[in-house]
Structure formats: structure tokens, C-alpha cells
């Protein structure tokens, strides 16, 4: 049994596996299947200042080794989260990352301020949701706006601040450096890649929103590359995600530089994926005689 615990921005995780924001709701549904305490952390569903209804359906499409979603940040609003969801989650012996978003920097600030008086462990600021027309993705695709929203939220919170980056950019390393300079304590990546599918029988896009965010195994090689580039570009910790569906994948992302790994779409294929991945990481470390998972973080030896 290897030591699986990791520490990110002084916050302890029992193990490096975290269900990604948006696939795990606020944890209640998967708790039917396994105790949440088996997880390293939980990234909660992206939450905004006010309740949002999200996009029209269909919101889901399948793609080769992946999927598209255009949920569009449906959520009950931060007050509901703080009153109804967070207290419950905080009893679960698992590190909680409150994923937040907003259409404007001011909205993000207000959401962060509301979390300030809670016991949530970390804030994950999503500047990269491709499914919301105003704001969202726009922040994440330029260094200036990414830095600006980070700077403002930084001022509003003393919690460890993770900024979640968009892969739909020319240079993710540049964006990462900007948000690091603007005060982010960590970065997480990748959010979904913008994609589209068309029903050739009707001639209409499958998603009612026309386009949606692609995730799942298909995007994994892009995630490895981006995590590697970002880990080489910044000094703050990197939380990796994108297409992870096995312990093997998680180890690859950690070798590329991730201090922890989020698991998204894989949970739809196998609802036990996050707990299975924890076990698979442990098996790998044991088989190699590696005593702590920390030894593999950033250990890739490039040519």
C-alpha cells in the first residue's frame, strides 16, 4: 500500500483523485454507490451567483471515444449551494473544491465573497466554460481577461484559489503564466474542447446549442500535452484532467506534471471510475516499489 496522499496549496488530499466539476453534481447521486470519503476531493458543479436554467436539450451527444455536453452551467445558485449542499459535503471527510463561474468578473467576485465565510477547502474558478455565451469562455481565451478576473477574485478570497483553464487557446502556457502572476494558487486543466455533431438525417446539429464541450478519452493526449506545457511554465501546482479513465491515464498525467487528477466523462461509462482509479494507481506504485505517489509528479523525462 503506497502513500497516496498529496498536498496542494497546503490542503491535504487523501489521494490524488477528484471527480471533475459538472459530472458529479454535489455528490449525492454517487453516494448511493460508494462512500465519498474514498475520494481525494470533489469538484462541485459549477455554481453562479443566481440560479441558472442552462441550455435547452439535447445537451449530450456521443463522439468517438468521447462526448459533447452543452449543459450551460445549470445550477441552483451559490446561496443554495452554501445552505443546502456544502454543509452536507463538509461532513464527508473529503476535500471540497467549490467550482464557481460568472458572466462578469464582478459576478465571480460576489460568488467568491459568499464562499469566504464557509469552510469550503478550495475555490476552483472556471474561466473556461465553452457553453455560456456571455463571459465564461471569453475570460479564459485571453491572457488579459484571464488575469483580470483572477486578480479580482484573488482580492475577494483568502481560500486557496485554483483557476481552471480552457484548452481552446493558442498557448495555454501563456494563460497559465498570466493567472499565476495575477495571484492564482494553482491551475487546473483542461476544460472541454469545443466540438459539434450534426444529425445527417435531419441536417440539424445534435445539440440544441449547436456546439458543446468535448471530453472523454479522445481528448486525453491533448490534456497530457497541455499539463506538461503548463507544468513547465508555472511554479504553482497543476491539477490535471481530460479524458482520464484509468489509473494508467492518471499516472501519465501526474508524470506530465499534475499534482492531482480530476475524472470527468469516465464516470458516465463506469460510475465507480474514480474509486477504481485510486486502486489502480496504488497497484501500479506497489508493482514498481514506489512508496509515495508524490514521487511520480512531474517525473517525465523528455527526450
Amino acid at each position, binding site marked *: 500500500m503506497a502513500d497516496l496522499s498529496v498536498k496542494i496549496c497546503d490542503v491535504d488530499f487523501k489521494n490524488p483523485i477528484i471527480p471533475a466539476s459538472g459530472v458529479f453534481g454535489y455528490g*449525492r447521486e454517487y453516494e*448511493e454507490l460508494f462512500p465519498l470519503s474514498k475520494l481525494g476531493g470533489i469538484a462541485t458543479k459549477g455554481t453562479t451567483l443566481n440560479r441558472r436554467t442552462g441550455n435547452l*436539450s439535447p*445537451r449530450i451527444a456521443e463522439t468517438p471515444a468521447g462526448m459533447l455536453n452543452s449543459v450551460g452551467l445549470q445550477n441552483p445558485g451559490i446561496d443554495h449551494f452554501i445552505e443546502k449542499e456544502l454543509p452536507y459535503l463538509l461532513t464527508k471527510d473529503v476535500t471540497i473544491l467549490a467550482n464557481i463561474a460568472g458572466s462578469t468578473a464582478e459576478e465571480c467576485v460576489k460568488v467568491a465573497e459568499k464562499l469566504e465565510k464557509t469552510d469550503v477547502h478550495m475555490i476552483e474558478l472556471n474561466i473556461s466554460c465553452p457553453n455560456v455565451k456571455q463571459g465564461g469562455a471569453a475570460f479564459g481565451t485571453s491572457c488579459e481577461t484571464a488575469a483580470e478576473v483572477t486578480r479580482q477574485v484573488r482580492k475577494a478570497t483568502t481560500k486557496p484559489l485554483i483557476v481552471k483553464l480552457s484548452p481552446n487557446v493558442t498557448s495555454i502556457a501563456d494563460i497559465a503564466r498570466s493567472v499565476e502572476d495575477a495571484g492564482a494558487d494553482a491551475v487546473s486543466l483542461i476544460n472541454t474542447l469545443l466540438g459539434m455533431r450534426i444529425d445527417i438525417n435531419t441536417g440539424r446539429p445534435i445539440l440544441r446549442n449547436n456546439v458543446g464541450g468535448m471530453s472523454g478519452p479522445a481528448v486525453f493526449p491533448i490534456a497530457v500535452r497541455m499539463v506538461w506545457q503548463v507544468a513547465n511554465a508555472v511554479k504553482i501546482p497543476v491539477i490535471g484532467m481530460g479524458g482520464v479513465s484509468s489509473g494508467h491515464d492518471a499516472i501519465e498525467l501526474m508524470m506530465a506534471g499534475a499534482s492531482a487528477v480530476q475524472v470527468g466523462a469516465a464516470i*458516465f461509462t*463506469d*460510475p465507480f471510475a474514480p474509486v477504481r482509479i485510486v486502486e489502480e494507481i496504488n497497484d501500479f506504485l506497489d508493482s514498481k516499489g514506489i512508496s509515495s505517489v508524490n514521487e511520480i509528479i512531474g517525473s517525465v523525462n523528455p527526450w
Partner: protein
Amino acid sequence: MKYTQGKYIIIQKAAIARNIYSFTISCPEIARIAVPGQFVHIRADGFTLRRPVSICGIDPKKGSLRIVFEIRGEGTSAISRLNEGDVIDMLAPLGHGFTIDPDFEKVVLIGGGIGTPPMLPLAWIYGKKAVAISGFRNASAVILQEDFAGTGAETILCTDDGSAGIHGFVTQPLENLVKSGKIDAVFACGPAPMLKNVAAICSKNNIFCEISLEERMACGIGACLGCACKTKRNDEEYFAHVCKDGPVFNAEEVLW
């Protein structure tokens, strides 16, 4: 336990019409708790997303479930290639089922095409109190009529082209039943236009009506918010989720 995930053995497989398969699956812990209207979420080898399929038979004593599904694309095609003795990976039982009310004296069950299977467990429950109307494109698409007859329900068969049963849509016999006497409830599953028409008839005649909806799903359990459907509750618009709040909804709640 509300639902669970596991690999279960297929104990019987049959092709019951062109591209339509019936699987009976041994899964005692699911069969024990499943109710009519719920569905199972099946992993299709090689695909990221599971496929939702309604429960068509529940046998808590034998510990088995039955599903009936049509090949529509590659996922259902992969599932159809499983054989007796193979295991099938299911997350189940999921969703909110049909209302079962012992006070109902007369109910109408309406199934359109591949929407017919989920009505069968309900027919077992309402038995002689039920009239089961089933509609299909044509005679070769007809399924499950003997099964419905076996439940004690009265059966009415319609086909779009008249090649079997009544020539026409399921709404015609429904209108006749409505005219000829009191109906406590209508339960329906099938294509959206059919459901809309059924809902309109019930609304006009003030009949309690529940319908089973379809939407593209990811998690199947209410966590991902992928399967939204517009409903109204207490006169407020509300995005419900087909997998958790449904698939069965009160027809009055659904905003088309």
C-alpha cells in the same frame, strides 16, 4: 440502496421482431426493488455513454428483469450482439416510475412502437382494470401482444397502415374509451407527437395522465444535468431531469 451497478448474466435472449431483441437478465438485487416505468442504463462496449432502456418485465421471485430494445445505432447494435450466458453491465434501477394506485378502477396503457415495452409491467399490476392500446408502423413491427393479453388486460392493436389490428393511430381507440365511460388514468410511452396528442385528450377530459419521456443522457442518475426537460411545477418553469425526475412525468407538467 436506490440503484446499483454491476455485471449481470443474460439468461434468455430472443429476437422478437426485425432488429428488436428481448433479454432476460438475472439481477436479483435490482429485480427486488424495480418498479414499472423505471429504466436500466447499459454499458455498450466501446462507447463512452451508456444506453437507457426501459424495464419491460420485473420478476422479483426469479430475481430477473426483462428488457426489450430496438437496434437504432451502433450502441444498441453492440448490446444486441451479447448472447445468453454473457454478462451485461447495468446501472439500475433508475428513475421515477408510473403511479400505482389501488383506487384506480380503470386505466388505459398506451404504447407506441418501441415505447410499448415499459407498459407491460404496468399491465401486470393493473391487470383486468387495464386496457392496453399498442400502436406500430405495420404488422411486422408488432411486439408483446401475447404478453399483454397474459396480464388480463384488454388489448387493442393499431397499425399505421392497417396491416394488423385497427388501421390508424392509438389516439382513436383512446377517444372511444374516453367517450364510453370513466377512466381514472392514462399511462403512455412512445414518440413525442403521440404523447402530445394523448396528453391533449386527457387534459381536455380531465383525466390523470402520466407519460414516459426520452432524452439523451450521460450519468442517468441526476448528477450531470444532461437530460433536461422543460416542465412547470407550481406554475413555475423548471428544468426537470428525465433520468431522475422522470422518465415518467405527469403530462400536465411537461412543457412541449
